């Protein structure tokens, strides 16, 4: 194997770091210097998609929302695994189908578990 990497071979990565950090610093400094400063009460308010903000954001709220959101992310990510299978469906052949079905069975048992446990009940 051609494993003889010199430290200088990684210079592009360093360069990328510098560019990434430099971009953030430059834009932040530039907007501070260039931007006009008009401080009024409305200007300093929290921006909430144009809707007037109400009350404090730091209040306890229902964990149900998080539960549904995290379960969504979980299953969303698991579905991503099906794309490579779909692309290589023919070349993977019967073994691919068996392995994918085992994966999906495990995946569905998880789904069944959360439904039976009542994780998606909204009351």
């Amino acid at each position, binding site marked *: *194997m051609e*494993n*003889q*990497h010199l*430290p200088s071979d*990684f210079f592009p990565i360093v360069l990328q770091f510098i560019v990434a950090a430099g971009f953030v610093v430059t834009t932040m400094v530039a907007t501070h210097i260039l931007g006009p400063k008009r401080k009024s009460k409305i200007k300093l308010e929290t921006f909430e998609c144009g809707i007037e903000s109400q009350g404090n954001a730091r209040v306890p709220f229902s964990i149900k929302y998080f539960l549904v959101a995290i379960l969504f992310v979980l299953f969303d990510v698991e579905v991503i695994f099906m794309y490579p299978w779909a692309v290589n469906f023919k070349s993977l052949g019967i073994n691919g189908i068996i392995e994918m079905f085992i994966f999906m069975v*495990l995946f569905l*048992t998880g789904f*069944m*578990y959360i439904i*039976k*446990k009542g994780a998606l009940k909204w009351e």
Partner: protein
Amino acid sequence: MTTLIILSALGLVVLFSEIFGYKKIVLPFIFAGLVAALAASFIDWNIGKHYLNEMMIVDNYSIAFTVLMIAITIVWFIISPGFFRDQGSRVDHFALIIFALIGAQLLTSFGNMIMLFLAVEILSIPMYILAGSNKSNLASNEAALKYFLMGAFATGFLLFGIALIYGQTGSFNLQQISEALTTQQDGGGVMAVAGVLLIMVGLFFKVSAAPFHFWAPDVYTGAPTEITAFMSTVVKTAAFAGFFRLFATCFSASASIWVNTIMVVSALTIIVGNITAVYQTSFKRMLAYSSIAHAGYMLMAIISLNGYAQQSILFYAVAYSVSSIAAFGILLAVSHITKNDDVASFNGLAKKNPLLAFVTLLAMLSLAGIPPMAGFFAKYYIFTAALQQHYTWLVLIAVLGSLIGVFYYFRVIIALFKNENSAAEIPMTGIYKAALLFISLVALVFGIMPGLLAGLL
């Protein structure tokens, strides 16, 4: 591999027992499954097989550790019968324990860095949840959060290290990494050094070696005692099995990078663990610090890169886990009555509960490393292996550490035979007694006939 499949299926079956209403028969089922997994582990004995493109390498080393961990889990299921009996999510916790065991098994038999990472995570994530399984207890919540944050942080280090090693060697495969590190000039250069050191930091967190041990006492004390018992035996054994496998085989070519670091950390862990344990009044917290100290001794096996190292770390893991689970079993029984974890609750135990006192005596002697017990030969083998590499000063510190250890282990033994306020008779089921007696006798038998285990690998 068969073991892995059996354990995974068992975990799923246990997980679904509440939903499909066979909760009542789940405990016998768990025992049957664990025994089947134990039996299946022996299939590959002396054969040595690779699975899934060398993702998993099953050899005698990994089988020995797997058998040990499954056996300890069986004992664990016997000594925690009242485990969350009042809570609705009892079987979920059992399932999590089995999933953690799967991670532990993978951690003994990985052949690939990806597998190492997966194993660490499969082992850790159930433990984060289980540490907080006593939901109404603030200390338990704190333990879970602390463990999770620290564990996630440590995993970050581990991943950084793996990435750097991959960058240098171009492979995740342990065999290929080892070859690449041997053939490359100056052992891989600065990337390999940084990578190995970062992986080491990640694993130091997991095995709670000083100065990365600060999470351990709080987590061990805050978590429910049953979970602490599992953490300080199975999880610790698995972490060390993985640590040893990675460093003593894969990174042995570039030993000059890491041997000195581990040597210093080992000495520091022995000193810090033993000295802090002396000042503890809580038995549980004392065991937590003693488990840190024992991590220091086991680190000594990793740097003794010779033929003895493998069998000495196995022997130490057996002796330590067996005595430790016995100690926690006693604590569970005693604290169930006295409602606290203090050493003082052992006062006068010998009078009304001679069996319990006898088991405590054997467990403490074994942990302290007193001759007729397995703990003595465990330390003896570790020290011999280290002395062959001429780590004289390290062995000296370790011996001094064990002497300090004798002090706090004997404080428990003295408490047993005190005359004052003898505790009432502690009710225990027959199988509980049998399990405690059995494991302490195992510690005794391996102490009298160490050859049974020492020549195994």
